[in-house]
């Protein structure tokens, strides 16, 4: 589905990614874990075309998308739920969802997507005409995920969906992420600092440290890795 090979990205003189490679197979949940400033967000922003890499390649469903502008990447079926949610705060929940379906021309398909997101996040339906900025953090995350779903993606990248959210809502959101993957067959690349949670829901994991992949493997085996335990799972 998605393949990143030898990706280099820098911000001026600062190298954020020093040549990383990773794969997300069809239908799977892959996680990318790592501490502050490891380069997780940079990876996602480069994949979706918001940042230009110095070198390396991003392939999505067999097509080289490395130099495509973000809106064209989205048009190919890639959804990106950005760090900090970035919902359109002055717009209503309804308008945010409509913007999520910006590229969709079939009214029936848009209506079906709306029904689907209301099914998984019924709360959004209750808040439909509320200004999105007035939602709670967890609700905003639900909206951000739903907005991405409105574009009928085949693959979604989620950037720290647990950040700044009440623990009670975190589990709901992660259950929904699994559900989206299972029911719709949408492949997922999950970026997390919360390694416990990420390893629990994913099939395969990569560990990113200061711009380099330092460890990778099936999530179950990484969960028991002593090195990883010491660094990310609190012993």
């Amino acid at each position, binding site marked *: 589905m998605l393949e990143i090979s030898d990706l280099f990205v820098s911000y001026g003189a600062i190298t954020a990614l020093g040549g990383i490679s990773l794969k997300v197979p069809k239908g799977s949940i892959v996680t990318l874990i790592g501490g502050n400033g490891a380069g997780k967000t940079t990876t996602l922003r480069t994949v979706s075309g918001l940042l230009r890499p110095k070198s390396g390649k991003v392939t999505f469903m067999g097509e080289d998308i490395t130099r495509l502008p973000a*809106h064209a990447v989205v048009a190919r079926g890639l959804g990106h739920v950005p760090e900090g949610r*970035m919902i359109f705060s002055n717009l209503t929940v309804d*308008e945010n969802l*409509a*913007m*999520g379906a*910006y590229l969709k021309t079939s009214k029936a398909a848009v209506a079906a997507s709306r029904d689907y997101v209301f099914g998984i996040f019924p709360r959004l339906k209750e808040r439909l005409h509320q200004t999105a900025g007035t939602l709670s953090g967890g609700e905003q995350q639900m909206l951000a995920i739903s907005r991405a779903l*409105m574009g009928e993606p085949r693959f979604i990248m989620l950037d720290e969906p647990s950040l700044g959210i009440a623990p009670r809502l975190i589990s709901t959101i992660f259950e929904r992420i699994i559900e989206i993957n299972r029911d719709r067959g949408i492949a997922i690349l999950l970026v997390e600092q919360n390694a416990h949670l990420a390893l629990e829901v994913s099939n395969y994991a990569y560990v990113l440290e200061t711009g380099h992949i330092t460890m990778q493997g099936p999530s179950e085996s990484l969960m028991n890795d002593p090195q990883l335990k010491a660094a990310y799972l609190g012993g």
Partner: protein
Amino acid sequence: MSEFLQQLINGLSLGAIYALIALGYTMVYGVLRFINFAHSDVFMVGAFIGYYVGRALPLGTVWGGLVSMAAAMAGCAVLGIVIERLVYRPLRGGPTLNVLITAIGMSLFLEYSGQLVFGATPRAFPQIFPSKVMEFHGLIISMNQVIVIVVASVLLLGLEFTVFRTKIGTAMRAVALNPGAAQLVGINIDVVISFTFGLGSALAGAGGVLYALNYPSIDPLMGVVPGLKAFVAAVLGGVGNIPGAALGAMILGMVETFVDGSRWSTYKDAIAFTILIGILLFRPAGLLGRMTSEKV
């Protein structure tokens, strides 16, 4: 009382013209965070398009007037889109100061090109709409004022509809709020920015014709003063805020008209700038703007 009503109508029509210009400033600021100083000169070009097209058509007819106005709007929309595409877009992503200085350069370019093409001598603007002066209960209303108020109201409502009720308008607001997130839902921000320039410039073009109708002489520097006042109106309402720009323009038009009719009329033009300094000192975010500090 009728004196007051008279001034109210005068103020309303002046404010409506300022609003048409101010909206272009505020919409462009909304999506690109810079002041397009060349906007006031697009307004001037609108007046000249209205002048040439108007003279080619039968004068004093409603359809002739409307066609001249439509031509000015279309011509200005194209001009605005071309300026953004050729001049501002290559600078996007760079320091804002570069774009600001370029905008001032673009403004001077249009003013001096205007002098070259149209000549520097002021010209009388033709009466493109039927002229008629109506009087009731001592209130004198010219047909031109009615046209200004009606046309401006229709355009402002049309803009309101476009921005708040259509997909492209919602996309415009989305881009203004968060360009990165807007791209992530598939919005091509280049298209939205072109649209914004086209829309703002079309309104300025209509404003140019309406202004020329009421202050019936035009010249290549005619945009400077109304442009500055519309800019003040945009800042007064909260730059980037669309209803704010319309409100600011109405307030400015009214205040200016009432000062003009008083014994302080000499200071009419100073009022705008006094207001500007006042807002910058006491309410920098404008009347409807939200107080937020610039995020770095």
